[in-house]
């Protein structure tokens, strides 16, 4: 029986067990929305397409499932671009459906026409322009498959309105066969054995775990490996939670604003075991001085990540979970007591710290610490980008994967609030807190109404310092303190703003009020809460390895 293209789309989404669809209507997608009206898919109407795609991204990261987005042609599609690039750089599985003008109008500068497949080519894992309705179901099936397998990423499908309005027989394909796309999952057994032997003979090994461990759900296998070998672990920003940061063997996060002990451990290691990580410049600093004495084992599903920035001695291409399982079968513990003791000492001597004053403004780090204590570390944290993101990474201790959700690769301001909406929908059993700055929160503030509409008890903790703090910090340290256009103290009243959106607003101006405000927020379970923490204006994030510098040039604290 022939059905409409728009029905094929909705039926295909149902076949893919899509729970939530995030999006925004528009002219050429009316046929699809027409079918969604009665469909058993929960539609989350954003107030800007960027909000929709970040929400789908937050949903995907919190749940491990594929996020799905629907927007119209032209501006609807271009508003998704930052979200597509965000998901692409952090390997988040998304299927993005955009409407397009009718096939006979393409290339005609028609109303609301843009070449969105052309625009998104370098920022998506793959994309499609549907030209024939007979391909529609197959393309949707392939898109879900490509988005969620191998190294995941966003896949866009551009659907002209005449395809949605056309008629065709619906049969959803059971299998996918793409000859140019066959990800490798099983690690090469010889490479795995070689890696085990190298680890066993190492004196100063360190595990460097990244977002790939989260994506492949390999936290359990990673913990098993550490249990068997006693090797200390540091993680990237996106790898946080894969190994409990409360454990003595955790060196916590490495990199530009990582802990001193994590960077010390990596720099002085004789063997770096990279698992699902890609040697980003924010991790390595000056690459020639990154690991002067270490051999490198690199486990990653993406062959293009291997030996890209750092030459690898033993590459193992495949799925982290499968490879770690194999390693755990045969690996024996190396003799590294001396090294572990050395690192424990470095960790004790160089803790993350900030200066607490008895009087004066609230310390932003203190706010994050209290959020950690009062939630007993059980919340899901999303972040914006900048100082708020780094303090959220440093002072909240993550013990489970998928509990820290942040735009790592692209560094997208305005990500945290919509991502919190997606994460809260995916995990109604958890408290979701967006740790925000007063700059970033204003970038997608319109999504607050979506959180209120769905009665989501998201806590938005604004670390309000009246500055675009991270840029101001760089201006202070490297640009002669010329605070060019980073002061944003002409700001909205966030408490009134919360109320205008049907949320609860709390202002905190003194340190002693911090706990009570957090407790009050935690007691509210049916609407979003904004807490406007008026924090120190010129607090900096430390330690800091300046861009392109080495660990020896780490700035540990405020210079007098």
């Amino acid at each position, binding site marked *: 029986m022939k059905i409409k293209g728009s029905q094929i789309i909705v039926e295909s989404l149902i076949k893919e067990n899509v729970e939530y669809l995030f999006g925004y209507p528009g002219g050429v997608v009316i046929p699809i929305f027409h079918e969604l009206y009665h469909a058993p898919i929960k539609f989350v109407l954003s107030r800007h397409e960027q909000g929709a795609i970040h929400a789908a991204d937050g949903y995907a990261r919190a749940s491990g499932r594929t996020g799905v987005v629907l927007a119209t042609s032209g501006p609807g599609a271009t508003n998704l671009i930052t979200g597509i690039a965000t998901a692409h750089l952090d390997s988040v599985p998304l299927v993005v459906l955009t409407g397009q003008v009718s096939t006979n109008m393409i290339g005609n500068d028609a109303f609301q026409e843009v070449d969105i497949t052309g625009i998104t080519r370098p920022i998506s894992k793959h994309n499609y322009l549907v030209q024939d309705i007979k391909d529609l179901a197959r393309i949707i099936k392939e898109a879900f498959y490509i988005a969620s397998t191998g190294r995941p990423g966003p896949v866009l499908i551009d659907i002209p309105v005449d395809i949605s309005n056309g008629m065709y027989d619906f049969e959803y394909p059971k299998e996918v066969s793409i000859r*140019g796309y066959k990800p490798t999952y099983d690690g090469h057994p010889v490479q795995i054995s070689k890696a085990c032997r190298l680890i066993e003979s190492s004196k100063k090994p360190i595990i460097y775990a990244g977002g790939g461990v989260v994506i492949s759900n390999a936290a359990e296998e990673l913990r098993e490996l550490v249990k068997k070998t006693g090797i200390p672990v540091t993680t990237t920003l996106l790898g946080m939670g894969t190994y409990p940061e409360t454990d003595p063997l955790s060196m916590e996060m490495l990199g530009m604003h990582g802990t001193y002990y994590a960077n010390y451990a990596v720099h002085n290691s004789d063997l770096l075991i990279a698992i699902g990580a890609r040697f980003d410049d924010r991790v390595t600093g000056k690459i020639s001085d990154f690991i002067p004495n270490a051999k490198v084992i690199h486990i990653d599903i993406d062959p293009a990540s291997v030996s890209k920035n750092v030459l690898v001695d033993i590459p193992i291409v495949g799925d982290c979970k499968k490879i770690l399982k194999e390693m755990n079968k045969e690996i024996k513990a190396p003799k590294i007591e001396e090294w572990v003791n050395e690192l424990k000492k470095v960790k004790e001597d160089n803790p993350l710290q900030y200066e607490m004053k008895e009087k004066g403004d609230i310390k932003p780090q203190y706010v994050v610490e209290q959020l950690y204590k009062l939630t007993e570390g059980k919340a899901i944290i999303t972040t914006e980008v900048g100082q708020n993101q780094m303090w959220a990474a440093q002072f909240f201790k993550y013990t489970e994967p998928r509990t820290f959700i942040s735009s790592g690769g692209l560094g997208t301001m305005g990500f945290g609030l919509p991502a919190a909406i997606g994460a809260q929908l995916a995990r109604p059993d958890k408290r979701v807190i967006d740790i925000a700055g007063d700059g970033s929160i204003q970038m997608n503030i319109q999504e607050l109404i979506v959180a209120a509409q769905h009665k989501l008890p998201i806590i938005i903790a604004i670390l309000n310092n009246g500055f675009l703090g991270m840029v101001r910090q760089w201006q202070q340290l490297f640009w002669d303190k010329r605070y060019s256009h980073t002061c944003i103290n002409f700001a909205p009243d966030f408490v009134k703003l919360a109320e205008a959106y049907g949320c609860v607003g709390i202002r905190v101006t003194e340190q002693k009020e911090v706990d009570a405000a957090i407790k009050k927020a935690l007691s509210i379970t049916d609407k979003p809460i904004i807490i406007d923490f008026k924090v120190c204006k010129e607090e900096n994030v430390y330690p800091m390895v300046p861009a392109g510098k080495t660990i020896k040039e780490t700035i540990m604290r405020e210079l007098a």
Partner: protein
Amino acid sequence: MSQHIISVRVENKFGVLARVAGLFSARGYNIDSLAVSKTEHDDISVMTIVVNGDDRILEQVKKQLNKLIDVIKVSDHAQSSSIQRELALIKLNCPAAKRGEILQLAELFKAEVADISLKTITFSIKGHTEKIDRFIELASPYGIKESMRTGLVSILKEKD
């Protein structure tokens, strides 16, 4: 920096050329020559790309090419292990008085006369890149009005 000849077998679909070219242009690499054609299979095209660049970066580009969903196979064609040809069309100034010596030069290179007019002569020449380079060099004193080349095509030698 060294010259690389990369042969890429791809799905014969619209947009694939843009994806492949994008990987080079995003790194600021100019493609020296590019030839795209059908193959023995209707649904597979082959692209022969000649590019100059740093070995390690090109290694990375090849891995990125392999990641493209529509790319079926990427191979490096070294001079020694492959057969390579290109074709050029060259239009020379050629007054009647010079015709004899120009035709003599063309004969040495087995260049064919494709067109002739009162003042010009157009040759078609095929072969190795170096042979065509040399012909152009020797013909240039007569005045080249227009010249163009197809880009290299390359096929691997069969091993016995």
